[in-house]
């Protein structure tokens, strides 16, 4: 194959150290000494110097003239890729094989004082580039295998996050299937009378979201549990247990929005033993009844104490559940307005109301007469009384004194905890979970996208979240899923001319025309040992029963793990393959 070198003098800043004619001679001498006159050398027929290759006109003119001379591949030498190189590669990449060599930052500029050594080094760099070019041309180009997409996204969980996600997907024109384990949609929303910080009704919001989802044509599967989701080539296979019995269905993408449930304060603070020790949801229900006129306000407690961080931020549940403080403040405000004759105290460790809206809720609570006391977690508070609760004893964190607050109700504010089923589902999807059982994505910049392609998480299955955050996360996951669905329709592209960039970059642009092809397995060399499937972090390697290993192009993130463990050298990455790297290194050592 005929190759040409395009040498950029960079307005003289490169050629001051590396004059073009001397470099051409050095390169020729280097090639001659390494390969002799005969051997299979990475020959270079054309050496073309120009002064500003990064200008489109100049690079196109240079490219045209070397192509006219019959060259099929081009090695461009100039500044570093992070300076103008990447831009220039795009001009050069259109019609031919191209490779970039940095001889400005990496050679001419740092070796100004030793021009002879700089010349030798530049010749080495150019030879390595030519070798890589030769090898790269030998890599056969194949379009990535792409299975027929189903065009459907499975959203697991019909709570606020799942509803927001399915609704947003529908509005973006993506077919969504919403699986909810209960008969009714809405999740926790149906149990929350009023929502902070705007004091709108939970069931009404749920109705609105459900109306949206149904109007937009989302297929809703009530009373359906998802017992497992397996990655299969081209997508995911989910096992759904619904009214038609067990059913297997294929999806292109999966959104996990399975939510979480509040822990019941069983066995704590004499809950269940004393009347008046309540869970937050029990109080929420009676507040709702009073507000709707089903019950007298007098039935509500007169001296209520909210106890925060019950069964949270301890050894069993070592996390702050984010929603309990605002929920308590909200219910404290409601209680104050329904029973102005009573008193409400919130006994807390730290009131966690970050941001603008929640902090405003905090101020509103204190303004409406809610008292806040901080307690010392070293001494466990105690509910006092026989049969009925009469008070709460705790150690005040500010003055260190033991205090007894009279109370006819102690409301235990407990954290949200993921369902055991969620953990199983996350496991079958290959999602990482933290020690508490919440699903993990890539914090902090990709909080709803775990590393697997086509899997997204949102809502309280990710981490306890307020309803507003659940809605936001649901929509954010929908945006990613919609982009992914759009991307898998057009994932092929010519990658030969693009330099190696971090794989996360390609993930950020799922449908970009310059997406690199996936890893591939040479069926003849494959011994079916299965090591690549075991090591692939993205679930992209599959071992069919009757054939060699297969790679799912949609899920492959080009991490190279398969190529690294493959004992027979069957797995490889097109583009910057092991073979290309080896060619570079061999060339560098050949002199």
């Amino acid at each position: 194959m005929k190759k040409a070198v395009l040498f950029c003098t960079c307005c003289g800043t490169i050629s001051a150290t590396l004059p073009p004619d001397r470099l051409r001679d050095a390169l020729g001498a280097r090639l001659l000494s390494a390969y002799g006159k005969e051997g299979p050398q990475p020959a270079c027929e054309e050496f073309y110097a120009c002064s500003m290759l990064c200008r489109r006109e100049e690079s196109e003119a240079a490219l045209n003239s070397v192509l006219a001379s019959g060259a099929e591949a081009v090695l461009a030498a100039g500044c570093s890729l992070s300076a103008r190189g990447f831009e220039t590669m795009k001009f050069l990449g259109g019609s031919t094989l191209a490779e970039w060599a940095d001889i400005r930052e990496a050679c001419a500029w740092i070796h100004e004082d030793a021009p002879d050594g700089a010349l030798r080094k530049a010749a080495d760099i150019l030879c390595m580039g030519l070798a890589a070019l030769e090898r790269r041309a030998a890599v056969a180009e194949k379009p990535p295998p792409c299975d027929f997409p189903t065009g459907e996204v499975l959203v697991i969980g019909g709570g606020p996050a799942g509803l927001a996600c399915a609704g947003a997907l529908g509005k973006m024109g993506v077919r969504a299937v919403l699986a909810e384990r209960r008969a009714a949609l809405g999740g926790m929303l149906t149990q929350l009378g009023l929502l902070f910080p705007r004091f709108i009704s939970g069931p009404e919001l749920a109705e609105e979201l459900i109306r949206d989802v149904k109007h937009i044509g989302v297929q809703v599967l009530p009373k359906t549990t998802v017992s497992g989701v397996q990655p299969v080539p081209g997508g995911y296979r989910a096992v759904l247990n619904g009214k038609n019995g067990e059913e297997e269905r294929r999806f292109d993408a999966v959104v996990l929005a399975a939510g979480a449930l509040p822990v019941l304060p069983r066995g704590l603070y004499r809950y269940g033993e004393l009347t008046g020790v309540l869970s937050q949801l029990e109080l929420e229900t009676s507040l709702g009844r009073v507000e709707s006129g089903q019950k007298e306000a007098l039935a509500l407690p007169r001296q209520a104490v909210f106890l925060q961080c019950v069964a949270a931020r301890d050894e069993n549940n070592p996390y702050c559940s984010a929603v309990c403080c605002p929920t308590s403040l909200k219910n404290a405000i409601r209680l104050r307005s329904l029973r102005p004759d009573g008193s409400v105290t919130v006994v807390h460790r730290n009131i966690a109301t970050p941001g603008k809206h929640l902090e405003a809720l905090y101020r509103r609570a204190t303004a409406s007469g809610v008292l806040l006391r901080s307690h010392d977690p070293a001494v466990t508070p105690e509910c006092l009384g026989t049969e009925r609760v009469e008070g709460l004893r705790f150690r005040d964190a500010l003055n260190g004194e033991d205090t007894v607050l009279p109370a006819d109700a102690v409301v235990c504010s407990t954290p949200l905890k993921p369902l055991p089923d969620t953990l199983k589902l996350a496991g079958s999807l290959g999602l990482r979970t933290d020690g508490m059982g919440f699903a993990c994505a890539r914090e902090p910049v990709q909080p709803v996208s775990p590393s697997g392609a086509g899997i997204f998480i949102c809502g309280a299955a990710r981490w306890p979240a307020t309803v507003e955050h659940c809605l936001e996360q649901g929509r954010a996951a929908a945006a990613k899923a919609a982009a992914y669905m759009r991307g898998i329709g057009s994932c092929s592209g010519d990658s030969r001319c693009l330099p190696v960039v971090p794989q996360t970059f390609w993930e950020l642009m799922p449908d970009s025309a310059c997406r690199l092809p996936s890893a591939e397995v040479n069926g003849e060399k494959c011994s079916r040992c299965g090591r690549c499937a075991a090591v692939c972090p993205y679930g992209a390697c599959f071992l069919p029963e009757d054939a060699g290993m297969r790679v799912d192009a949609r899920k492959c993130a080009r991490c190279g793990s398969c190529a690294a463990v493959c004992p027979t050298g069957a797995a490889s990455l097109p583009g910057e393959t092991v073979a290309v790297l080896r060619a570079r290194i061999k060339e560098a050592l050949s002199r």
Partner: protein
Amino acid sequence: MPDTKQAVLVVGAGVAGMQAALDLANFGRRVHLVEQDSHLGGQTLRLDKVYPTDHCAFCPVWTHAFACREHPRITVLTGTRFKGLRRGPEGDIALLEKAARLIDGDKCVFCGKCMEVCPRKALLGRAPDLPWDPAQPPVPWLDAGRCDACGKCGPACPAGAIDAARQTETFEIAVGDCIFAGGFQEPRPAPAPEFGGHTHPDILTAMAFETLIAEYNAVPGEKLRCPSDGRPVENLAFIQCAGARDRRFLSHCSAVCCMHAAKQASWLKRRQPDLDIAVFYTDLRTPGKGQEAYMKTAEKLGVRFVRRRPGLAAPVDGPSGKGIALRHEINARVATTLADIVVLNGGLACCPCPEEAAEAGAHPCGFCSEPADIANSVIQAGSAAALICGRQTGKDASSPAYRGSGGRP
């Protein structure tokens, strides 16, 4: 068709703005990403590390910035200010102002000749307060305070990229939608005057302290020194909610500062275990993913978390010692503690969405709409992008090609 006629304007290219732009563009919308700075990345670029992973901020931000610049449907407009949005007869019109730049980034080849000829060394390889050059492709950074417009750089430039006579340009573009992601700023003067922010070199804001202790500035084995006189630091105090959760100044909670203090304190403790670090807080807020565990680690490393808000911070230099004196009132008694460096944390002001833009239908997201850390900003951005994409296409407008298998052979 997801490709609607008009582009979306995204104002601000911090993590939120970049994420919104990418989500919109990946869905098929054309995007104009407007940033007043010369580079993408926003405030995150000034962070040395991010919690809760303790990874450096550079890689994820760089990847996002790279993807924005390379995306075929995103037009990046750096050095451009958003001046307003108004309703036009056929959609919204955004008014933008491109600042006059000495060096045209499109022409510059970064050969360094202008830096060589500048007699006052006003042209540098990068801005001094950033560890690397975030502009891509790189362009020499102009220290406007030093430049005396002698004009020597112009003729020296082989690419003809320098033009001192360039004027600020104002132009309009038609946009279909607008996302506003203005982020936050540290107000000047500092919001709570009793803490002496910006009055003494040893009283620092959290972002300034981040630069001081950043990994790239640290010499291994070297102790942290006071910016004022270079003496080694023994005591360090963080004052949380300085100016925030305070009706006189900013009534909101800035949401990121508790974890920010824990991050800075714990990594200083790792580097220099003998340092005494106290964090004076009002409420320690760790509701986000992995945050409680992160805070516990900081406690284990020996960072002292003290529930107290000092009333006054003032420099002293007397028989009792030198440093910044913090005055507390504890159960009606006044106590004073001395610290070598005081970090004022909190008090991050949201850059609000201009009113007329909000009225014209701009979607605010990120810190400017609700104080948020990186994760929550990114989520808000994705949500805003989904709302815009959903509203534009609608169920009926979507093409069969987009709606899954129908369009595929």
